[in-house]
């Protein structure tokens, strides 16, 4: 019944997520930009926990570091932690009603941002304030849309 994991689709979504991460936007909207790559990893770890493990999260994180021209391993570390928490709890999270799922996503992205914040603190220049934590809110708000897309996709091809 469940749709199988589709590698090509995952890679396509990964490219889209990376492009959305660095696409230039006006400053105000930019600060509300959801963490697309973190959302992608959470989503895939939640529904295909056997395929998307911490290893994939690590590789995607490295890619995110390169695209962002940031310190190597920074996003990798954050994504590994987020993926690990998701994989540990995926059976429970799947059963949650949508509001509770959104809260979970909020906390997961908060963990993601906190790891980045922590690494930046060690390097020397942490950026705090609302701009740091606002992506967690927008990521949680965008989650129902992702779930909706998944259900729609599932309904269209029920035989996989």
């Amino acid at each position, binding site marked *: 019944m469940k749709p199988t994991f589709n590698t090509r689709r995952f890679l396509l979504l990964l490219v889209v997520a990376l492009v959305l991460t660095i696409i230039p936007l006006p400053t105000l909207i930019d600060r509300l930009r959801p963490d697309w790559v973190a959302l992608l990893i959470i989503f895939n770890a939640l529904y295909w926990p056997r395929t998307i493990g911490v290893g994939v999260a690590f590789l995607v994180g490295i890619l995110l570091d390169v*695209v962002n021209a940031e310190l190597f391993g920074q996003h990798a570390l954050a994504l590994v932690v987020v993926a690990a928490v998701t994989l540990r709890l995926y059976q429970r999270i799947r059963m949650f009603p949508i509001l509770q799922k959104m809260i979970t996503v909020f906390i997961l992205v908060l963990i993601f941002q906190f790891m980045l914040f922590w690494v930046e603190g060690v390097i020397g220049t942490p*950026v705090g304030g609302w701009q740091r934590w606002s992506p967690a809110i927008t990521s949680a708000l965008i989650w129902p849309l992702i779930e909706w897309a998944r259900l729609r996709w599932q309904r269209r091809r029920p035989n996989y």
Partner: protein
Amino acid sequence: MVNRGGANRLFRRGPSLLTRTIGLMILAVVLMAADSQYNHLGHVRNILQTVATPIRWLAVAPVQISRYANEIVTSRRQLHSQNAKLSNQLLSQAIKLQQLAALEAENHRLRALMGSTPKVDAQASIAEVTAIDLDNRFRQRLVINQGKRSGVFIGQTVIDANGIVGQVLSIEPSSAVVILITDIEHAIAVETVRNGVRTILTGTGDVQQLDLPFLPNNTDIVVDDRLVASGLDGKFPAGYPVADIVSVTQQPGLPFAKVEAQPVAALDRLHEVLLLWPEVIESEPSP
């Protein structure tokens, strides 16, 4: 009981989630240390950049296309008015330039007379901005389309038509990352044109705002003072405009005043930037 080992063999593959997570976290920390301290990863980075390049290209494609479309549909009348404006500008600048040539010659003569250090002149070349604002929320950086192949070097000064934009942070064969003066990690040595007060100007992460955190309360500095690079940091050539003071607030309880400035370069509207190559002009040896 007997089946348990079999079941484990069936369902468990490799080390547990916790082990893998901790292993990868350690690997990530090692990578960060290697990258920040020893810079061993330049080669790996170059390879991975080839993956990042098409993604960056995709991200800026809509901007590029709209710019191109804009150029195409510019009407004849607009072109006329723009042409007139530009010729006016050219004329006024040509007049200024005449004076500049005379002044420069005089400056050279005086410097030679005084036997002082050679003046550093600069040679410039244009680079196009390919991706604005990498992770704009926290960092002020941009990518340009000139790299090691065109002779770009780390620490190179980047300016636009109005003033200093930033400096080159890292280079790849055909692109480079520029850190803007407004990046929170950036600082530049400046002085005021009016009275030569020297201080340090730091970025805030906001593209319109710069801070001068080390000015005592009694410093003679007022709103609209122009700040230029002092050259004392050994990075930026002296004399290029950097910022204008927008607010000065005395803080009697604290050692320093709160002084804010605004960059003169149009940092949020950059399409092309200029890269400066220092060129030492021979001067007469002192007698």
